[in-house]
Each structure stands twice: as structure tokens, then as C-alpha cells.
């Protein structure tokens, strides 16, 4: 899998930005310049300075520290969501795609039903049943991501199940599970990888959206969405607050988008 920069610039840009964000998020877990939740009335809505490189929010909390901590939260939610979606999606997609028949029909109609609802609305319903918080948001979003992945994996399995190499494997007496997960699954990876990148994208946006609505991560903990929501009240007083937070979300999404395009081209 050697790819030259010239051949696939997007892949590299995506990798660099995503990698950088990942490093920042991991840093944020262990070290932030200030305690992200420490309030200081002397620094309320302070501007950008050498001490606070992105200024302070309405409670005098250091915005950069909060972005680092928030990035960590957002990333954890995004990774968790995609992990749940891909794992269950792949299993469901593989089984239905390989076996087909009535169970397949039933599963796919169920899939269609879930996909027919606006995802945020469904997430709201799940949250209102389970309660808010980081864990529940991840689970709720994860569940919503399952049908999308299931559909993609199923499509690939449908395509592959009658190809020669599968037929040969079957003739050699390989078990169904072995055929599904050792022979067919690796062939779906390029397609799966690019959808995973889009998935990260959507998960970051969905988490931001839910926290923005006040049902995601609970204050005083920070997440990028919550910060954007809070900054809205001070848009005219300290536009830098919303701008800094918004830019980080935009950059994160841009990184994933580039990664996705790069992978697609490569595949």
C-alpha cells in the first residue's frame, strides 16, 4: 500500500490534519495549559493574549484548554459511535448479504424504516429514554449508524457471494463463517474504510449538534458542540470565542473529508 504524495495529495493532507487533531485530543486528556473548568471572574471574556492564546469564555475559563478537553470528548464520542456502527453493521450486513432470502428482506425493510427518520430526531428519542450524557450519546448515535453500514456491507457481500473465489472456497469445504469473514470481508475493506471516514465526519457533527441542543455532553464539561452553543450568547461581544471553536470543528471535518476522498481514490 505505498502511495506517493503527488499521486494522492488528499490522503496525505487528511492524514496530517486528522493525526494532528488526534495528537491534540490525546494531549488534552493528560495536559491542558489551564484546568478547563476553572473559573476566574477577572478574565471574563478576556481577549486573545500570550497567557490565553484563544482568550477566555464567559466564566473566565481558558478557551484553548477547553478546546483541547472538548476535542478529546468529541473524538471519543466519534470513535465510539463509528465502532458501534461498523461492528454491528458489518455483522448484520454480512449475514443478510451472504444468506439472502426472507431474513434478509425483513432486516432490510427494518433498515429502511430506521433510515426513513431524520437521524437527529431518532437520537433525541433514544436520549429521552436513556437520559443524556457522553456514554448515552455515543450509544444513541452508534445505533443510528448501524443501518448505513449494514447496507453497504450487504451490497458488497451480494456482489461477492457468487464470485469464483467464493465458489472455490465453498467447494473446498470452508465453513460459512470462514468464507464470510476470512474470504469476503477483506475484499470489502476499501469501500468500508472510506465510509468509516465519512462516519467520523457525521459523528462529530451529530455530537456537536446534540450538545448544541443541550442533550449531549453536560456542562461544565466541554465538547466542541457545547462550546459553540455557549459562544452563541457572546457572538457580538467576543466573536473570537465562536470563531475559534467553529474553526476547530471545521478543520476536524475537513481532515476527515480529505481522508475519505483520499481513501476513495486509492481504493
Amino acid at each position, binding site marked *: 500500500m505505498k502511495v506517493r504524495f503527488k499521486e494522492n495529495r488528499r490522503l496525505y493532507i487528511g492524514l496530517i490534519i486528522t493525526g494532528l487533531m488526534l495528537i491534540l485530543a490525546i494531549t488534552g486528556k493528560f495536559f491542558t495549559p489551564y484546568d478547563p*473548568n*476553572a473559573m476566574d471572574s477577572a478574565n*471574563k471574556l478576556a481577549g486573545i493574549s500570550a497567557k490565553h492564546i484563544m482568550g477566555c469564555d464567559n466564566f473566565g475559563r481558558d478557551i484553548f484548554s477547553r478546546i483541547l478537553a472538548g476535542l478529546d470528548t468529541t473524538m471519543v464520542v466519534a470513535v465510539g459511535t463509528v465502532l458501534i456502527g461498523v461492528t454491528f453493521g458489518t455483522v448484520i450486513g454480512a449475514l443478510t448479504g451472504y444468506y439472502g432470502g426472507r431474513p434478509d428482506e425483513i432486516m432490510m425493510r427494518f433498515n429502511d424504516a430506521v433510515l426513513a427518520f431524520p437521524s437527529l430526531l431518532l437520537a433525541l428519542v433514544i436520549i429521552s429514554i436513556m437520559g443524556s450524557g457522553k456514554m448515552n450519546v455515543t450509544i444513541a448515535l452508534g445505533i443510528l449508524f448501524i443501518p448505513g453500514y449494514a447496507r453497504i456491507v450487504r451490497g458488497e457481500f451480494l456482489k461477492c457471494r457468487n464470485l469464483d473465489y467464493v465458489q472455490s472456497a465453498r467447494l473446498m469445504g470452508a465453513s460459512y463463517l470462514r468464507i464470510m469473514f476470512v474470504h469476503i470481508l477483506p475484499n470489502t475493506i476499501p469501500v468500508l474504510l472510506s465510509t468509516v471516514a465519512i462516519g467520523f465526519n457525521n459523528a462529530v457533527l451529530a455530537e456537536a449538534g446534540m450538545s448544541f441542543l443541550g*442533550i449531549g455532553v*453536560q*456542562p461544565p464539561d466541554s465538547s466542541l458542540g457545547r462550546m459553540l452553543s455557549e459562544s*452563541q450568547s457572546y*457572538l457580538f461581544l467576543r466573536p473570537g470565542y465562536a470563531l475559534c471553536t467553529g474553526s476547530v470543528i471545521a478543520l476536524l471535518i475537513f481532515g476527515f473529508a480529505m481522508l475519505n476522498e483520499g481513501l476513495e481514490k486509492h481504493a
Partner: protein
Amino acid sequence: MRKRLVFILSVFLTLTIALGGCSGRKTGDSSKIVVGIPQDLEDSLDPHKATAAGTREVLFNVFEGLLKPDENGNLIPAVAKEYEVTDDGLTYKFMLRDGVKFHNGNPVTAEDVKYSIEKSAGMTGEESLIAAFSNIKEVNVVSDAEVDVVLNETDVDFPAYIASVNASVIPKDNATPDTTPIGTGPYKYISRSPQENIIMESFDDYWGNKASIKNLEFKIENGDSMLMDLKGGTIDLTMHISATQIKQIGDDFDVHEGSMNLVQALYLNNKIKPFDDARVRQAMCYAIDKQAILDLAFEGHGSPIGSSMFPSFGKYYMPELENKYPHDEAKAKELLKEAGYADGFSMTITVPSNYTPHVDTAQVLVEQLKTVGINASINQVEWNTWLSDVYTGRNYESTVIGVDASSLTADALLGRFYSSADNNFINYSNEEYDRLYEESRKTLDDNRRTELIKQMETLLSEDAANVYIQDMAEFVPINKKFEGYTFYPLYVQDISRIKYKD
């Protein structure tokens, strides 16, 4: 041909834009004001069932009782033109005003008044929001123009309850007061669309000073986007916005500062551990720094309080309680240790997400409680979830909220801490308090009564029933087109007095 059309169109467009700016002052039927409110009226449109302060402040424009409060805290006649009390203090004789009409055009009859008082007192089988009305023995229609209310025991506060929104006069023949409210107030209800708005129109047959602005819309707006809508011009007036938001409001608005007449506190469910231990509650009072909360979340505005009474109640308010628990971390830790929580504990603060000031306060509280080892987390809930889980269901640990007075009485604030009161959502129970309360209900002598009320306040403070914070400052931005905004000592909005500037 085509060129010409473009020319004509562009002339029209220019004129529309240019002249659009000149429309300015509207009068008569096209006059309209949009008032932003932070929550929908989810409890009920029936004034006798309106539990939320935010609902009452809106319904104040639609309904009136026999009496109503004015801006100075006096009770003025409304549906009744006057009243007399018999010498024994047990019978109130209300003389009805001539020509008062309901919004459906029917005149208010003595039967309607009887029905309304009985309904709001729970005598028709429904739940009553005014505990003091259980004291009503009977309501008699004496003539077409007189209704007598007979009490079991004397109650000097009775007229103040009669003036509450929860005791409004409504027509007897309205089968669905929950959804089609009909009152006698200066505005009549037109429609409501959930989570969006409530539309009202001025009532032409109003008996008193008619509203100046014809169309009134209460628009439901999330705390954060309220500011955007104000600046964008879709809202002309709103009441409960923060000091920081006021700074950004710009030049299109006149800003009035008053006080919200609320008791904002971290209310604790006194029934559950560890809040059933007074030492824990006192420790929490010592742990928090009221002034820091005001500085961090309210730009220094607001008045710190120390019990369930706010400064507008001059007669009963006790400023000396404000500093009952000065900020003292060492003392807080000591008390926690005594109570067996040397290592602190974890707790949840449930806050309605639509009230930014309460959410902000909760955020500061989390930080302050952390300094004495109490690990608090915030759980934001929707307003109706808050009402059902916290207020009605009492299924919570602690909450930050402001409690208002539904009538101009000390009882409206203190009655809820009586151990068996329906609205005792903090499950406060103290025999001494119950005794004082019962005595105050029976006492006619005003000095003795005031003394008892002050003792109750002191007891709440000493017992640290709740972590009292402040009476919040209220900022009212109103579009410069309008004037006449009036503050009331109650949590109500009187839109009928607002008019266009000349």
C-alpha cells in the same frame, strides 16, 4: 420589451426597499408587539392549573380575579368594584362591577364568580393551587351583583389570594378551559402553537384601560437565540435575559433594570441522603460564594439573599440573613466531617436547559462545591421533564431554580415549606416550622404575624433548608418604538400598558 420589464421591476424593487424603511409607526389594527418568552405554556392554559411562573406571567394578560395587583403591590378592584369584610373577619362581600364581559362576549355573572372561586379552591373536585383556599367554607350568590365568600377561620391574606392569577374569574359554561381559555383581561387568547407561540388580540370590550397595541404574540425562544432574534428584530420585548446579553444588545433597545422577585437557590431534596442532614446543607451554604456567582454569571448584578424572601417584600424581608453563611471552606469541610462525609460525596444538579441563568449558576456551583470535596454533576432536562420529575414527582437530588410568589403574601413563599404542603417539592419537614406556620395562619394581629413570619424565615436560614443564592436582576430590553413597560412586585408581565412612542 424585456428590458422595459426589467426596468419597471427594478423601480418597484427599489421603491419597496426605500419606502419599506419609512413604515415606522403603525397604529390601529396593524399594531403588533412580539414578546419573547423562554418556555412554552406546557402546564395548562387554565389559570387555575397554571403552576409555572412563566405561564402565569403570560396568562396575567388574559385573566383577572375579583381583585388584581398593581405595580406598587396594592390590590385594586377588577371584576369586583369593591369589597367589604364583616367585623368577625369571616365573610368577604364582593360587589361585582357592572358591564364586565368575557372574551366570548357574555357578561360576567355572579354564578361565574362562584364557579371560579369554587373551582380554584378545589371544591369542584379538581386540585387547588392555592392551599389557603381550603379555608373557604362556602361561596354564596347573594344577588346578581354580590357574591359572599365565607371562611372557616380568619385570614388577613385572603384578598391577596383572590387577586392571584390562580383565582381568576372564568366562565362557567366553558367546557375546555385547558385549551380554549376565556377570561376578562385586556387581551383575549386567539391561538397557541406548541413550542412556537401564543397569539393574543386586544379585547375591545375590556372594562378598564384598553390595551394600546392590537396584536400580541408571545414567541417561545431558546435562551441563546433570544439575543439573535432581538437583534434581528423579530422580538420587540423580552424579560429574562442576562447582564452579558444586555451588553450586546445595541442601540435599538431601551433597557430597564429591575428585580425578578424570585428566590433563586440550589434547592435540595431534604428527604434523601445526604441532604437529610442539616450539617451537610449548612456545609454547602458555607462552601458557596454568592458574590462570586453574581460576578461570574451575572456581571455582578442581583441581590444575595439568605432565606425564602426577596427584598421587594420590605415588610418581611430580613437583610441580616444575607450573610448568615459567609464563604468559608474550612468551616464547610469541618461540618462535612462531623456529618460523616469527610471525603465529600457525589450529587446531581437537575437544571431546566431553557433557563440559561440557572444553567450558568449550576456551572459555577459545581466549581465551588468541588473545593470542599463535593463532586456535583449537572443534568440538563427539558422544561416539562423538570416540571414532572422535579417539581411534581420530587424525584431529584438538587436543582437550581427561582421560586416566585404567586400572590402578594408571605405565605406564597413560605407556605411551601409546611411539611404537608402540596407544593413542598424539597420535602422540607420541621415540626417547629409547622407550628410557627400554623400559628401565623391564625394570627390576626399584624405585628405578631410579621414576627412569626420573620421567625419562619430565620428558621429556614438556620436550618439551611436550601442553599439560598439571590434575587436575580431582571433586564428588560424593549424596542425603542415602544414605551410603558411596568415592573410588578410579582412575576407577571402587563403588556396592556405598552404603547408606541409618540
